[in-house]
């Protein structure tokens, strides 16, 4: 087996991984960094983020505003010490990106412009048209080329973590092109592997968003936190789930039902006027908007499309010039993928799974496994609580990507050099298990299990949940895990570029992550943020559940669920409300 030795392995070449790698290189140019990604970095899913990234720069805004919007947006399940650190570091990281060339949209005087987003008191979202993630990712990727310490391993699929003496010692990866298995021996490992939206059938996520990092850490004893909180984005194309950015509404777009009625006023987001008004109507948070869609659907107020029911996202009143300047990507996507021109017609949209608020439990990116760090969507550092505010995740990846890089660098300097026979032995055993999957030709197709998993999660752990529905999902996922263990039959047994093999390994991660989500949801007997129940637990219960859930891996059985207090510093839980009276906003 080929062995590559380095100081730090960064798993994932998206915004988190690239920012972390740069932070390591800048903090200590002597450290050797392996940036290991299953795709070439610029293919990472950061690329598809549209709307923008939050950072307080307006005179009428404040860090307290950002803090309070985030904490109330998260229904008080945020760790407030982490939120405080976060809001204090957003702007410097956004400026850093600007210094690296990121083409943020500007005002006429050459200063950065900001737009509204849901759940925000004032305009706070830095944007690069509606390709913010694309520009952030390419800026970071191109900038990373400057640093000779960063050695890229593009299209290396990380399939296992290697631990010894209770600390991380490296990762095992498959070189995609050849199928060769490679051991990266390292002193520290950073996970920047993104979310797990693909465990659901209809989602906004790229095909690569399969929860690999969560699964890797979970299997090796790191606990997954707050996994029941899965965000449905309210405005996605039916069928494909392709995202129509929240920036549409941030720029003044409206949502109407089949009768042309702005239905959000019926769901504690009104009154309608004055419009636009922060934190009201279409500028409400994602959980509330997705829930409102569900009710409209139940009432028969949506309309049918060949790919599911929908409501209208109407941008027409913004005018062609503004639509093309501010929202070019979604305009093109609506034209090509939905056959609708937003300049002349409303876009049919419905909610789809978008984001995993939970992830690998990490205290300022340090996980429970010494030497293992996690940041970005795969992690739960505690800033999103029960519902993430739009435009907080694109800043999260750079703020905490940098923290992960600096902490991993510092940790790596404290760990002695040296390889170990035990590490090699473990790597050989893990490689044998991977090769056994490759050789298997008896059992079910990977797509069969994948689709059944997606449907089970959609049905049982969706926008609204009930005990019986979640129990059914838990049972179904357990059954799918048993069928997975019984064997996935591959058509392709070759080593080179075997994506069927890789997909099978990904499915293993996804099933375990899905199980953690379903059980965490089943056990949370209250409603909070994106976790809302139709049964007797339809309200928030701070006495019992102002707590993070933690899912512990138990092998073949279901996860063990436990709880941990939420860190509260200055914002005591109160009723989370949107809408109501307010001043009309001036759009910038």
């Amino acid at each position, binding site marked *: 087996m080929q062995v590559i030795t380095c100081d730090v392995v960064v798993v994932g070449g998206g915004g988190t991984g690239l920012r972390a790698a740069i932070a390591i290189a800048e903090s200590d140019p002597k450290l050797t960094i392996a940036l290991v990604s299953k*795709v*070439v970095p*610029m*293919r*990472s*899913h950061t*690329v*598809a983020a549209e709307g923008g990234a939050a950072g307080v720069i307006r005179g009428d805004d404040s860090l307290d505003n950002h803090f309070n919007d985030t904490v109330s947006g998260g229904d008080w399940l945020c760790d407030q010490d982490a939120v405080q650190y976060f809001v204090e570091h957003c702007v*410097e990281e956004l*400026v*850093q990106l*600007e*210094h*690296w*060339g990121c*083409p*943020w949209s*500007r005002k*006429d*005087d*050459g*200063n*950065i412009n900001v737009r509204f987003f849901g759940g925000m008191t004032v305009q706070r979202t830095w944007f690069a048209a509606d*390709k913010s993630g*694309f*520009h952030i990712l*390419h800026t970071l990727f*191109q*900038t990373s*080329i*400057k640093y000779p310490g960063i050695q890229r391993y*593009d299209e290396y699929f990380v399939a296992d973590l290697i631990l010894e003496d209770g600390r991380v010692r490296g990762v095992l990866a498959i070189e995609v*092109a050849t199928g060769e298995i490679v051991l990266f021996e390292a002193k520290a490992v950073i996970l920047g592997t993104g979310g797990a939206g693909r465990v659901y059938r209809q989602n906004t996520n*790229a*095909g*690569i968003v399969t929860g690999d990092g969560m699964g890797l850490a979970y299997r090796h004893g790191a606990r997954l936190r707050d996994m029941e909180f899965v965000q449905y984005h309210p405005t996605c194309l039916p*069928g*494909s789930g*392709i995202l129509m950015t929240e920036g549409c509404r941030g720029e003044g777009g409206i949502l109407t039902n089949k009768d042309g009625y702005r239905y959000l006023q019926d769901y504690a987001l009104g009154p309608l006027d004055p419009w636009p008004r922060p934190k009201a109507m279409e500028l409400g948070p994602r959980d509330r908007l997705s829930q409102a869609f569900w009710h409209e659907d139940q009432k028969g107020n949506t309309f049918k499309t*060949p*790919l599911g029911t929908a409501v209208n996202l109407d941008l027409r009143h913004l005018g062609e010039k503004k639509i093309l300047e501010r929202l070019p*990507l979604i305009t*093109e*996507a609506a034209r*090509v*993928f939905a*056959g609708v021109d937003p300049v002349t017609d409303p876009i049919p949209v419905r909610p789809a799974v978008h984001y995993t608020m939970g992830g690998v439990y990490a205290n300022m990116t340090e996980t429970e496994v010494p030497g293992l760090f996690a940041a970005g969507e795969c992690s739960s550092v505690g800033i999103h609580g029960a519902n993430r505010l739009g435009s907080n995740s694109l800043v999260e990846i750079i703020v905490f990507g940098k923290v992960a890089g600096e902490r991993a660098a510092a940790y790596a300097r404290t760990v002695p050099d040296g390889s170990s026979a035990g590490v090699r032995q473990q790597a050989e055993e893990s490689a044998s298990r991977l090769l056994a999957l490759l050789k298997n030709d008896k059992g079910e*197709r*990977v*797509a069969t299990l994948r689709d059944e998993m997606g449907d089970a999660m959609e049905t049982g752990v969706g926008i609204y949940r009930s005990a019986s529905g979640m129990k059914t999902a838990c049972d179904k996922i357990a059954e799918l895990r048993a069928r997975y263990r019984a064997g996935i039959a*591959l*058509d*392709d047994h*070759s*080593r*080179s*570029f*075997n*994506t*069927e093999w890789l997909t099978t390994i990904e499915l293993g991660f996804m099933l375990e992550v899905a199980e953690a989500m379903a059980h965490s949801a089943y056990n949370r007997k209250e409603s909070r943020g994106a976790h809302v129940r139709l049964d007797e637990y339809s309200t928030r219960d701070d006495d019992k559940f102002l707590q993070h859930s933690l899912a512990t891996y138990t092998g073949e059985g279901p996860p063990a669920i436990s709880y941990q207090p939420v860190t509260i510093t200055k914002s005591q839980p109160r009723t989370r409300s949107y809408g109501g009276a307010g001043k009309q906003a001036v759009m910038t």
Partner: protein
Amino acid sequence: MTAETETRTIEIDVLRYDPDSGAPPRYQTYKVPFQHDTSVLVGLQYIKDHLDGTLTFRWSCRMAICGSCGTMINGIPQLSCHTFLRDYWPKKLRIDPLEHFPIIKDLAIDQTDFLNKLDSVKPYLIPKQDKPLSEGAYLQTPKQMEQYYNYSQCINCLLCYAACPQYGLTPTFTGPAALALLHRYNADSRDVGWSARSDVLNSEDGVWRCTLVGYCSEVCPKNVDPAHAINQNKVNSTLDYFGVLKLLSTVGFGK
């Protein structure tokens, strides 16, 4: 049944090549059911999921922004997520890997050469001096942004390399996307890296290798217009040769 939901069947010929078998490339035909909104990518995924798990291709975002899924569709370089089976039916459709790149397996090509070229153009901001973060962002007016903005839209999908006959003939040519990116940084008001990039730009494999076919810009799914970037830089390269560019650049020429 409306046209939107009607299921039809199309035949797709896909180039197959398995490096492990040693057998030469061949075409394999698949029958794929599709509806009005089925992209070529979704057609390939149908084959992979239900008919033949050995078929190999790259994809990720399925919304034309990640740049993974470029292929030759009936001989034209296109993103498979962005191209629809309805537009080819009732005729057959042929899918090949992108032209001018070595094949790893089936439709997956080796992108190493392109990635090395990307590195060679120093695609990062080279400022006059390091600006402390505490000073905040640079000022850059929308007009200054316009100078480079279009060239920052490249998704690195490689369609332009597959389209470029010159790259096919002379693989050392730096090529459309990398040169457009070089120009993106040169044209940025915050950047002073012209001289650091001039060797690549002025060399025989730089802008002068381009013979102005312009097919790169035609196939670009993001309207980046690399042909324009390259040919604008033939002028810049000439001015540079005669020592004029240095003078002009002090008054903001090309920014």
